[in-house]
C-alpha cells in the first residue's frame, strides 16, 4: 500500500504547480497510470481523498487513465500490446520480448481548473 505516498506526492506536485501559476481552483487532476507501474487505481483514488483533506485540493477529483502494456517485438519489428497473462511474449509471433515501450507511466497529465 504505497498509494498514500503516491497520493501525497500528487497533492504536493499540484500545490506547487498551483502556487507557480498564482493559485488555481483545481476541480480535477488527470493521471496516466501504466499497468506495470505497480499502483492500484481504486486504492489511489481513496488515498487521494485522504491526502487532499484540509488542503486547497479538498473535493477535487482524481481521473485515472490506465495505460496498457505495449512491447516492442524485434522479430515483428512492431509495437505489440500484451495481455497480463502473456506478458513478455509477443502475441503475434510468440517471441520473448523485453523492451517495454509503454505501461510504466505514473504521471500527472493535466489539471482541470475552475475559472
Amino acid at each position, binding site marked *: *500500500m*504505497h498509494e498514500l*505516498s*503516491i497520493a501525497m*506526492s*500528487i497533492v504536493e*506536485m499540484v500545490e506547487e*504547480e498551483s502556487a507557480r*501559476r498564482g493559485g*488555481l481552483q483545481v*476541480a480535477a487532476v488527470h*493521471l496516466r497510470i501504466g499497468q*506495470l*507501474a*505497480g*499502483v492500484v487505481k481504486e486504492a489511489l483514488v481513496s488515498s487521494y481523498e485522504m491526502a487532499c483533506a484540509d488542503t486547497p485540493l479538498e473535493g477535487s477529483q482524481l481521473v485515472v487513465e490506465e495505460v496498457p502494456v505495449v512491447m516492442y517485438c524485434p522479430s515483428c519489428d512492431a509495437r505489440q500490446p500484451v495481455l497480463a497473462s502473456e*506478458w*513478455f*511474449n509477443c502475441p503475434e509471433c510468440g517471441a*520473448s*520480448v*523485453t523492451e*517495454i515501450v509503454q505501461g510504466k507511466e*505514473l*504521471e*500527472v*497529465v*493535466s*489539471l*482541470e*481548473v*475552475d*475559472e
Partner: protein
Amino acid sequence: MSGGTRIIEVRQNILKKNDLLARDLRQRFHDAGVYVVSMVSSPGAGKTQLLEQTLTKLRPEHSVAALVGDLATENDAARLARSGAPVKQITTGTLCHLEASMVESALNGWNLAELDFLFVENVGNLVCPSSYDLGEDLRLVLHSVTEGEDKPLKYPTIFNSADVAVITKMDLAAAVEFDEAAAVRNIQAVRPGMKIIEVSAKSGAGVDALIEFLRSSKEAGKAMVASE
C-alpha cells in the same frame, strides 16, 4: 470569467522528486567508488540472513556497510552488526518501502569514499518497493523456495524492476517439493534473460557464486564509468 473550466497541461512524473534524488545519489556513489546493491523480497524470504553471510564473506577483503529498512524494531541491524560491518537501521514507521530520501539521510556521517560495497535491504514487500529508485547499481529480488513457484507471475512488476533473481533457502527445496524448473520458467516469463543465482544462506551453498557475481559486477561497473 465564471463558470468555465480549462485544462492546464502538466505532464510530470509523480515520482520525479524521488527519481531526481536517486539520480544524484547514483552519481555520488559512482564518484565515491562504492557499488550499491539493494535487496527486495517478501517478508521472511531470507534477506537478512543472506546479507549477514554476504557481509561476513566480503569483509576480509572489502570495506562493506549496510542500510536495512523495516517498519519497526532494530532487530535486523543488530543481527547484521554481528558481521562486524557498519550497519544502520532505517525504521519507516508505517511506510511499506524505502525512498531515496531515506537512503540519503541514513548516509549522514558515513564516508562513502571508504566503502567498496553498500547494501540496502528494503522493507519486506513485493509490491511497493518496485516504484522507487534508490540510486542503487544493482537490485536483487529474493525468492525463497518456501514461497512456491508462482511469485514472479503474481508480482511481475517487482521482478521486472530487478536485475538479478536470487532463489534462497535451497537447503529446504526437497522438503517443500520446490519445482525449480517451474520457478525458473516463471522468472524468465516476466523478465526474459534474467540472471538467477541459487543460494542457501544456512549451508552456505551458492553464496560464493553470489559474491563472485557482485565482485565482477562492481568491476564491470567501474569499467563502464571509466569508458564514459
